[in-house]
């Protein structure tokens, strides 16, 4: 008896969960932010969210339309992310989804988003498949293609004449892409190559091997907390005499934890907070004033995404006509904080890339700083595989 009653209550409860029907209101622009906001990597998602919302506040009504921004957390779990993406497009009627941070999540959410006809704009992830074979007219990236940052470091190592570089990356797809990207523009010798366990905290065994080999330089791809640990332990192991090259390993999201240990470490990037453009100065100042921290690329790319959307929607006169909206987006009718910025035929940016170095600023905060420009108007190497209809 009680069981039947429980089940009745359950059925009633399940219908309560039904959300409002998808808002197909032509005057409202619905943007879903699908970012990683929990777990150890949440700081990246938080930066992207803050960057986007900073732009949205500055703009007011994005694209001149009533704007509804829905922020959801993908928990860095692909299965959760797919369902959240579906909820955004099916239930909330999102016209544009901005996300995700991580490439593996991109693989999971792209299909449900574009299947519904919505636009997906990545403020960070740039996996090779979406730049190449699986490019899609509804998918844009305001960031970069993953390999490019590594290619910057490869080109630098090549130019320095290193001939014995030790490679280190976590054992997952992005890690493999990173080392492949580095080798794409580096032709010297490799002292050793180690793929560590994803999420590994202690690198003493790997550092011992590096110490034994005494390479010309180390190239590492260790995003998030892994990078914090690696950099600090690298310094503790007394290896700082060996140049440390990296991508996504020392940036403003990890520097608050790495602090002095990371100073003078080198990285490749499409931007740094001290990039000298008026838009960038304004952005960095506003961001630092509001959030009391130095922005990283994630914040910058999301900030640009919001401004891209604003400009394109104005140009297309709304979001109802998706073809017009896509055509407008392709023109990138806004001034990026990065200065030079345009989209290639695969909807990935053509932009400049720099060698950066970690510095301690006068105000005591740590940040990356541009050393030299490595690539000018650089396009990814997958664009040839992209057959967009």
């Amino acid at each position, binding site marked *: 008896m009680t069981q039947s009653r429980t089940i009745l209550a359950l059925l009633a409860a399940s219908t309560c969960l039904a959300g409002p029907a998808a808002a197909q209101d032509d005057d409202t622009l619905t943007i879903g932010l699908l970012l990683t*906001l*929990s*777990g*150890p*990597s*949440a*700081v990246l998602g*938080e930066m992207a969210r803050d960057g986007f919302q900073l732009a949205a506040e500055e703009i007011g009504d994005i694209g001149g339309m009533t704007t509804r921004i829905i922020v959801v957390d993908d928990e860095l779990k692909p299965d959760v992310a797919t369902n959240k993406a579906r909820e955004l497009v099916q239930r909330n009627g999102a016209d544009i989804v901005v996300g995700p941070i991580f490439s593996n999540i991109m693989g999971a959410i792209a299909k449900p988003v574009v299947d519904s006809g919505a636009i997906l704009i990545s403020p960070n992830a740039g996996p090779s498949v979406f730049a190449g074979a699986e490019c899609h007219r509804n998918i844009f990236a305001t960031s970069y293609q993953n390999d490019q940052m590594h290619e910057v470091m490869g080109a630098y190592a090549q130019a320095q004449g290193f001939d014995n570089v030790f490679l280190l990356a976590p*054992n997952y797809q992005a890690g493999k892409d990173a080392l492949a990207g580095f080798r794409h523009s580096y032709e010297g010798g490799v002292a050793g190559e180690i*793929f*560590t*366990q994803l*999420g590994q*905290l*202690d690198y*003493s*065994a*790997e550092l*011992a*091997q590096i*110490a*034994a080999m*005494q390479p010309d330089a180390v190239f590492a791809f260790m995003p*998030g*907390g892994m990078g*914090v*640990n690696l950099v*600090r*332990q690298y310094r*503790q*192991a*007394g290896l700082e005499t060996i140049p440390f090259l990296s991508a996504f390993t020392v940036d403003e*999201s*990890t520097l*608050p*934890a*790495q*602090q*002095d240990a990371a100073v003078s470490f080198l990285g490749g990037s499409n931007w740094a907070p001290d990039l000298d453009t008026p838009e960038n100065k304004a952005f960095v100042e506003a961001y630092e004033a509001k959030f009391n921290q130095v922005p990283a690329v994630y914040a910058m790319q999301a900030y640009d995404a919001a401004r891209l959307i604003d400009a394109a929607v104005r140009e297309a006169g709304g979001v109802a006509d998706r073809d017009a909206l896509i055509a407008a987006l392709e023109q990138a009718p806004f001034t990026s904080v990065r200065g030079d910025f345009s989209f290639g035929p695969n909807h990935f940016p053509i932009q400049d890339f720099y060698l950066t170095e970690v510095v301690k600023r006068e105000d005591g905060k740590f940040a990356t700083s541009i050393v030299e420009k490595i690539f000018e108007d650089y396009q990814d190497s997958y664009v040839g595989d992209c057959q967009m209809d």
Partner: protein
Amino acid sequence: MTSLFLLQLLNGVQFGILLFLIAAGLTLVFGIMDFVNLAHGVIYMVGAYLAVSFTQMTGSYGLGLLLTLPATLLIGLVLELLVFRRLYDRPHLDQVLATFGLVMIVTEGVQIIWGAAPLSVAMPEALSGSIPLIGQMRYPVFRLVVIGAGLATALGLYLIIGHTRIGMRLRAGATSRAMVSALGVDIHKLFTVIFAFGAMLAGFAGAMVAPILTVDPGMGEQVLILAFVVIVIGGIGSVRGAFAGALLVGIVDTMGRSFGPILLRLVMEPAAAGQAGRVLAPMLVYILMAAILAARPTGLFGQKT
């Protein structure tokens, strides 16, 4: 090669010692109170976070560490009074569920208080840097300190359990709860003490790693499962077993990671060896555990049933 081998062995020992610090508290609670505590890992995490905050407050890592100990002891006491005390006589399943709930609460709570971004503690100046060990190989001073602290803890536990009155009660409690009660010892008070002490050990471990590893909301879980592996290998309830199990796991994991691919290369092609090594390395400790349990279902130092 030999020097690299020795250095890696030292790395393995250091990792093992760290695991022992966490596993020691867990195995005491497990063995003596027959209590499954999934929340042990989050106490380790809270210890690390407190070390970060206390170090910032006092400006000294040493003081931060000293403050963390009573703080985690207190947290252990409070948790014991509020939650665990009510679960001792329950089936293991209830304990698993309640502590699983606690893991969710604390992990989320830590994110609310300290944020999700990884934090860290600056290495104390005196202990930073490295000393030459063999040839060009250097070893970080702080890791030697971790080894020393772990060995001191192990010795301390050995003396307490083997040679003091409370240790005698602990040993009796592990054998028969009813007997200890019959001897007129307040078993609940004893449990409270053990639990708080175990929490403090976990907090100590958390504070010890804060200068080496990042402090983030996921750190408790990874270590928790490895600590379970350690005490299951060692035999639940045996501190000696936890020590042996921790060293075994630490050394096997470290050596497997660094020399596994080299060994595999002897029997297969380099590419296949690299791939196989990457697949096998993280599974190694679990394979070790399965092998040991298949031979000895109650672990190396466990009581036969």
